[in-house]
């Protein structure tokens, strides 16, 4: 009944709610960025640039929404190849910032291939699983794993632990969702358990010093407040000091006086939590939860496997980033440098996230056209 009404207009209340949630979260993000950087002395302050990124993202959103996702998926392999090339380029020609080489300069801006790599990976894996029935653990696990591996390696080399973990999360979510025989699942679980010590050794050894310190600082952030635990502790102080009702807009001393580092990027959630308190946090979490819920709704009503896998992949990536970011600002996880989707300042991430959400809505649109 509702569907029919929607079909006639091509735009329904579901789309409205979905887009409404996105706009609300984006708005909260810009406000928080403005609050923490409003004293910035620049022709183009962060909040203004973020608005530009959002507008660019809106274009990407519309493009992804209105084209056919099957056609987009067909471009997955070449796109992945291009991304791999870009990831190689960034290693040699990229711009460094705070010890990591993640950006390719483009005029006044810088472009971060690892952000786009996440979306392209989702497309690639979804395309792979849906092209033919994949049977056996070789086809279901190992081959896609070989697809993931080079990208993951290049991203960890930058180093970008956050994006690397996102990559793994996308892969794991896909594996979980693709129907898998319990035997194959058992083999994976067993082998990963056995390989864990070696993998840990390899992982820990491959980490850079500052990454290791961050993880160590997570274990006991109060131990050395001046050093490695500083970020984690200051973020917890900011959130905790917000109490029930918050310190009010611009009232957060932790963020206004810059005790909280990276208030406009990775720790934007702490800025918000300090200003708006637990009540604000509950509202924001509800917005995110609603967005995830609607995304899963799209996945569960997708008309084909490609659509379902795309929706699941995007939803999982989004959820993973939200949970890990908020978890790290609240001191539940080590600080791994994952931005908060739709809120943290950053051009590549904002455009990529909005493009992904556009793709999600595209999956839902195709379902309707077949009814």
């Amino acid at each position, binding site marked *: 009944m509702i569907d029919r009404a929607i079909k006639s207009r091509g735009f329904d209340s579901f789309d409205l709610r979905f887009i409404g949630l996105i706009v609300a979260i984006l708005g909260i993000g810009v406000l928080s960025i403005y609050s923490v950087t409003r004293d910035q002395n620049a022709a183009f302050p962060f909040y203004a640039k973020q608005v530009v990124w959002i507008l660019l993202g809106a274009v990407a959103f519309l493009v992804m929404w209105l084209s056919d996702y*099957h056609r987009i998926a067909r471009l997955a392999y070449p796109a992945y190849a291009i991304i791999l090339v870009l990831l190689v380029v960034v290693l040699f020609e990229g711009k460094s910032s705070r010890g990591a080489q993640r950006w390719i300069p483009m005029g006044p801006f810088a472009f971060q291939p690892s952000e786009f790599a996440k979306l392209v990976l989702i497309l690639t894996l979804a395309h792979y699983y*849906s*092209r*033919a*029935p994949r049977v056996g653990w070789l086809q279901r696990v190992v081959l896609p794993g070989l697809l993931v591996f080079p990208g993951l390696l290049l991203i960890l080399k930058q180093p970008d632990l956050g994006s690397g973990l996102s990559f793994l999360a996308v892969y794991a*979510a896909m594996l*979980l*969702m*693709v*129907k898998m025989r319990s035997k194959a699942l058992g083999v994976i679980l067993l082998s990963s358990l056995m390989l864990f010590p070696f993998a840990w050794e390899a992982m820990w050894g491959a980490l850079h010093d500052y990454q290791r310190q961050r993880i160590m600082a997570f274990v006991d952030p109060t131990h050395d407040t*001046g*050093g490695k635990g500083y970020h984690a502790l*200051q973020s*917890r*102080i*900011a*959130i*905790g*000091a*917000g*109490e*029930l009702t918050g310190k009010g807009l611009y009232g957060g*001393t*932790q963020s206004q*006086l*810059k*005790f909280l*580092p990276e208030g406009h990027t990775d720790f934007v959630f702490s800025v918000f*939590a300090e200003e708006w*308190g*637990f009540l604000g*946090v*509950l509202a924001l*979490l509800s917005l*995110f*939860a609603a967005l*995830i*819920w609607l995304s*899963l709704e799209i*996945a*569960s*009503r*997708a008309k*084909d*496997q*490609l659509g*379902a*896998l795309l929706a*699941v992949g995007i*939803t*999982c990536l989004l*959820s993973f980033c939200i*949970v890990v970011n*908020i*978890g790290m600002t*609240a*001191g*539940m996880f080590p600080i791994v440098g994952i931005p908060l989707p739709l809120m943290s300042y950053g051009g590549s991430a904002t455009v990529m996230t909005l493009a992904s959400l556009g793709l999600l809505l595209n999956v839902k649109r195709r379902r309707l056209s077949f009814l």
Partner: protein
Amino acid sequence: MATAGLHDSELGELQRRLIILRVGLLLVVALLGLRLWHLQIREGLYYLDLSENNRTRSVIMEPARGLIYDRNGVLLANNVPSFTLYVSLEDVKDRNVLIDQLTNLLGLDPVFVRKKIMAKGSKQLPRKVKGRLSLREATLIESHRLDMPGVMVQVESQRNYPGGVVASHLLGYVGEVSPEQLERPEFSDLHQGSIVGQYGVEKFFDRFVRGQAGQKSIEVDAVGHEKRTVVVEPPHAGDNLYLTIDVRLQKVAENLLGDESGAIVALDPRTGDVLAMASRPGFDPNILSRELTPKQWAEIVQNEGRPLNNRASQGQYPPGSVFKVMMAAAALETNTVTPATTIHCNGGYQFGRRLYHDWKAGGHGSVDLRRALVQSCDVYFYTVGQRMGIETMAFFAHQFGLGEETEVELPSERIGIVPSAAWKLKAKNEPWLPGETISASIGQGYVNVTPLQMASLIGTVANDGVAFRPRLVQAVMDRATGELQARPTVPKRTLKLRPEILPLIKEALAGVVKEGTATRAKSALITIAGKTGTAQTTALGKEKRAEKDIPKKLRDHAWFVAFAPVDAPTIAVAVLGEHMGHGGSAAAPLAKELIETYVKLMPPISASATNGMVTRDSDAGGPGPR
């Protein structure tokens, strides 16, 4: 789309599995909510506390010290703005790294910096590391601030002595309160880095001049930049002091001594006001008020001229013939002699197997008391002393204020020595020898006095026996109220002498200048009375040598005490020149010049003293930050 090779069953299976994700993700979001509830609600107050702690710093606001003026309102000590380096320990991430950075940046001694930073005290209060930063140093620190969290440069008022070396012993100098001082009750309201007077008037009147420190809580950002002042408890500037000295006279006194070591004290005998108190060599209090390295300190302290010694109140010398003023009064009061009694002087006094020489080889012939003073006949006083005995001499010496504090308002005054049998037994554990009485009767032997005591003695004589406590500060101005409070003149005692005795002695002392040993002090401007003294520092043996052949170190100290004008004295002077030879030739001319200067400056001095002071009150608060 069929080409995708999907099976409906597989899609259905996948979509059924989504329930795992739904439940799982909702659970995780709920878990996040729980964690945030824990942080914000359960531990909210704790983190609020931490955030307050993060942003507020206590900063001490040092008070401006009170200003010091001379009796005419001429500025002697004020304050100038200067940069001070503080370290706020709460913001320091690694103390060792910071010590390294500061050492490299400012070229400081790492041990010194460590001591300052690790000093005892509340962790909330910043540690003062170095005052009087140069502009270059302050700029260097500011430009490296981001690398050195916790480092602050504050503008504070710094003690400054515009006159430099002038009146240095009198004014003294200031310095940081020492850890030992901090443990004493009178410094209990101070803290590490507080500036207190360490010498002179600065030390003695510190509780007036010091003022009271204020405190402010400031809001700082993550790199320690001051954003906003939260609470202010303003500092209270110290009280202003108006000294009794006339800086013009003081300068003349110091110049008279020139490169010689010695002291000149000038008092107003009617009030005890110290008009000038010079001691040479001097020092620059501006340098001593800085942080000196141990090496710089050692250089000053071990300097052979002992410039830190205030010779006026801390130098002890045998009085030589100046002692005869007291001896004459004692002899008359005890009826040992009458003014008419004559004693024959043939140039020596035989006592036992020893012959005590007179300074004049041939002797003075038959002399009465007046002539004995005018000519400074030693034999006369050997005889008188021998007749009176050491105990009587000691009694009268104490009457004249010798062997006790003048109670001048300066730290560490010395009292000299008035010898007696009891004193010798106590000090040397030896019995008194009769011959020692003879040396003592002309101010030699064990007798020791300070120039200030001598000035006070001659002032007492000039003032007809009424002794005043020397007064250095005539008024204190409360900075808060602007109220000027005069400090009283304090009569100390009145000599118990028959009334005809002092006029007799004063007339004889006028004769000393007119026709006796101090004719070089004779002035065309004013009548002067005085007494010379030549104090032997070592026994040179029997043979007399020409003075220029004696090494400087072994030459006699030259004394001259004087008052003027003779009939109504307004100034009393004591001059001591270390190793300058004869009192009559070396010291008397200096006293004369000082007195003449005073006469020229004098005319309306008592009237203008108060006027000048009051007119300058209005700008008194100017130099200090208010």
